[in-house]
């Protein structure tokens, strides 16, 4: 079930109404059943995979808490192997097999292992990571085992964040299912407003830009450099609005019922460095990797070469997390390289900034920092968006020729795209640099405030793409 569908609208209204009408001790059951229905609306049979990981991790949690010494580690490893194993079978099996075939082919051999004809379960990487964070936290002693099977299952399956995050931690979410939330109209309104903004980002900005981006990237050989450059910049905004739009709807839907999900985006397009970008983009995944991979490897408290290697490993794995394709691994590698390069060159860049005197002009300096970061991140996304490496290389080659006129399948599309980006940037700049100054969305006057949200809904109806389809991050 897609957040941007009428199906979800009915589902949300019915579930939320029933949620507040039911006594507190029955709400978990309603949420669990509705989450099952929500997930089964995609491919029903895949709920069995989810069920398997829930059962494994539920018992793993209990065994870890009851055990001592090496046994604790053993149960943790069992749980991690089960989770990663499922991920490997459904997401990486064919990718590994394909590369194995390629390797054997180099030696003149044929790969006897067959390919699997399976569909990737929606949001597999998201709920697997969320489930793993539970057993790891229980193992570390930061989280008590959840003995109530239904509530544990709900922790993994809570419908707002089930298929595309935010990837929650048990410390933040589990206890909320036991908390009693009375109906609070202010909170309901707050949640609805977040949902409207999320829908706006998805339907008006992401899906509109997606029309142009798909047109260019699905037919790279026919496009010229300028078209691909524009499409790549558009894609940067598209992927941000698509994913953060989903997160906003998830956070808003949960808020309506009283739940607080973690912030997943903090205006990453205004990041001043690639390092800062990763503190603002997909925060729930970045912190997951930091807590469960980067720090256990030693983080930055190791020798300098090892530190650089840790960064590269985290980003390469992050790339692989996104998809079973070399394009994602290269994308991760480029971003890891950016961080290492930034650390290595920090001293020289500071000297250069002093030399040019740009530091004395903070606004100009800020503008350059934001622009350069945006361009670097956008460049790496060429690999993220391209269907294969050869397409990505072709895109890069063509872009750097700076030749050709911009492909224009109707002037209206380009105008809508620029309007969408302008609107987004206005809101983001206002939130980033002028917080607390004049505001429409939080204006004291009821009618002004609501006129603003009516206006947003009208823009959604007038300019939204209603046939745009699913969210980009569902495939992960």
């Amino acid at each position, binding site marked *: 079930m897609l957040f941007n569908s009428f199906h979800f609208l009915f589902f949300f209204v019915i579930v939320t109404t029933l949620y507040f009408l039911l006594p507190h001790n029955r709400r978990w059951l309603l949420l669990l059943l509705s989450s099952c229905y929500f997930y089964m609306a995609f491919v029903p049979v895949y709920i069995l995979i989810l069920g398997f990981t829930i059962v494994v991790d539920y018992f793993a949690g209990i065994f870890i808490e009851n055990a001592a010494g090496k046994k604790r580690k053993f149960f943790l490893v069992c749980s991690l192997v089960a989770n990663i194993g499922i991920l490997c079978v459904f997401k990486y099996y064919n990718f590994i097999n394909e590369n194995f075939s390629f390797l054997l082919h180099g030696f003149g051999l044929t790969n006897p292992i067959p390919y699997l004809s399976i569909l990737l379960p929606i949001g597999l990487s998201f709920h697997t990571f969320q489930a793993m964070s539970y057993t790891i936290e229980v193992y570390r002693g930061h989280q008590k085992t959840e003995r109530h099977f239904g509530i544990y299952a709900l922790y993994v399956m809570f419908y707002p964040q089930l298929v595309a995050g935010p990837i929650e931690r048990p410390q933040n979410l589990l206890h909320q299912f036991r908390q009693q939330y009375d*109906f609070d109209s202010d909170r309901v309104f707050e949640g609805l407003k977040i949902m409207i903004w999320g829908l706006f980002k998805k339907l008006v900005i992401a899906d509109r830009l997606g029309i142009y981006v798909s047109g260019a990237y699905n037919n790279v050989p026919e496009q010229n450099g300028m078209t691909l450059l524009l499409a790549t910049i558009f894609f940067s905004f598209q992927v941000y609005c698509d994913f953060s739009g989903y997160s906003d709807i998830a956070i808003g839907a949960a808020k309506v019922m009283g739940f607080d999900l973690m912030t997943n985006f903090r205006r990453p397009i205004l990041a001043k460095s690639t390092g800062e970008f990763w503190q603002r983009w997909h925060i729930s995944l970045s912190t997951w990797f930091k807590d469960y991979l980067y720090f256990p490897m030693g983080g930055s408290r190791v020798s300098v070469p090892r530190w650089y290697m840790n960064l590269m490993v985290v980003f390469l794995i992050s790339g692989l997390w996104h998809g079973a394709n070399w394009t994602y691994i290269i994308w991760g590698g480029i971003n890891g390289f950016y961080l290492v390069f930034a650390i290595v060159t920090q001293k020289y860049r500071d000297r250069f900034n002093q030399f040019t005197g740009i530091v004395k002009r903070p606004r100009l300096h800020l503008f350059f920092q934001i622009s350069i970061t945006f361009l670097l991140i956008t460049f790496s996304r060429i690999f993220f968006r391209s269907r294969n490496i050869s397409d990505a290389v072709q895109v890069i080659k063509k872009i750097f020729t700076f030749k050709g006129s911009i492909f224009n399948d109707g002037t*209206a599309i380009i*105008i*809508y795209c620029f309007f969408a980006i302008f609107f987004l940037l206005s809101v983001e700049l206002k939130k980033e640099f002028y917080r607390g100054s004049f505001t429409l969305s939080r204006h004291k006057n009821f009618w002004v405030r609501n006129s603003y949200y009516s206006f947003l809904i*009208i823009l959604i*109806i*007038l300019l939204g793409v209603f046939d745009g389809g699913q969210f980009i991050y569902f495939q992960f």
Partner: protein
Amino acid sequence: MSKILTQIVTQRGYLYLLKKLAAFMVLFILFDFIIGSFFRYLYFRQTSGWEFRTKYSVEDTRADILIFGASRAQQQYNPIFFEERLHQTCYNVGRDGQPIFYYYGILNGVLRRYSPKMIFLDIENGVFNSEQSSYDRIGVLLPFYKTHAEMRQVIELKSPYEKMKLQSSIYPFNSLLFKIAVGNTKFNKNRNEDIKGYIPLSGELHEPIRTVSFLNQHVLDTNKINVYRSFINDCIKHHIKLYIVCSPYYMKTIGTDTSISIAKKIAHENNVDFIDYSKDELFLTNSTLFDDTVHVNVAGARIFSNKLIDNILVKE
């Protein structure tokens, strides 16, 4: 139930929310109505552009001969020749990229006002193939939903929730803001030559003919086939002389497209003439009559239109 209602009424939070929601809805409905009415006004007073052509086809044309189809109708049938040689008025209602749902929607709009004497329906390869985009494109007919009851059946095919979405006065004009604005200026008139709905193509193709295989079967859309049948039936019911035409291609084919075979069969079942130019030697051997492999250019349109008229004159 009464318990729930009592709870809603007595708890301050619920009542407060309901009041606020009601106020918000009033505000929204008011905005929706005002802005929607403004767009409706602008839409129906356009004087050029794609939306104007659709509006003109549904609400204004009184031509004796109408030409239906997608880009291959719009860019290949020159009404001037039909008027000169058949001594009847003619208008080309074809629209680029539109599926058969569009043609049928327009036909319903036309038949509400009058019955043309003759209709040419251009059918192309894959016309019945199942594609989601065909349903999305019904969107261009949304502005007529409110005032044209006869077109609703087709428009509601767009999605199961279309009826609900169309409660909004703004939704019919979704994504049309820019086109409506331009349609109210002279910009399109200065840019595109529009000869009674026919838009000439000036390019010339210089490449060897390629071969296309139709041996792979596509999934067919029964809705499209049913709409095609309805199109024929409605023409017969209104005593309109209908010709179904497959216009020229610059490509050799292996096998026959399933859609074309079905279209031919249904036409014959209903005693409707099906005229096929897709394998016409004159066009297959002359690439310079084409703008691209599926559209003839202005010279090709002249030859094709006259060839078709010759055929009609012989038949009559």
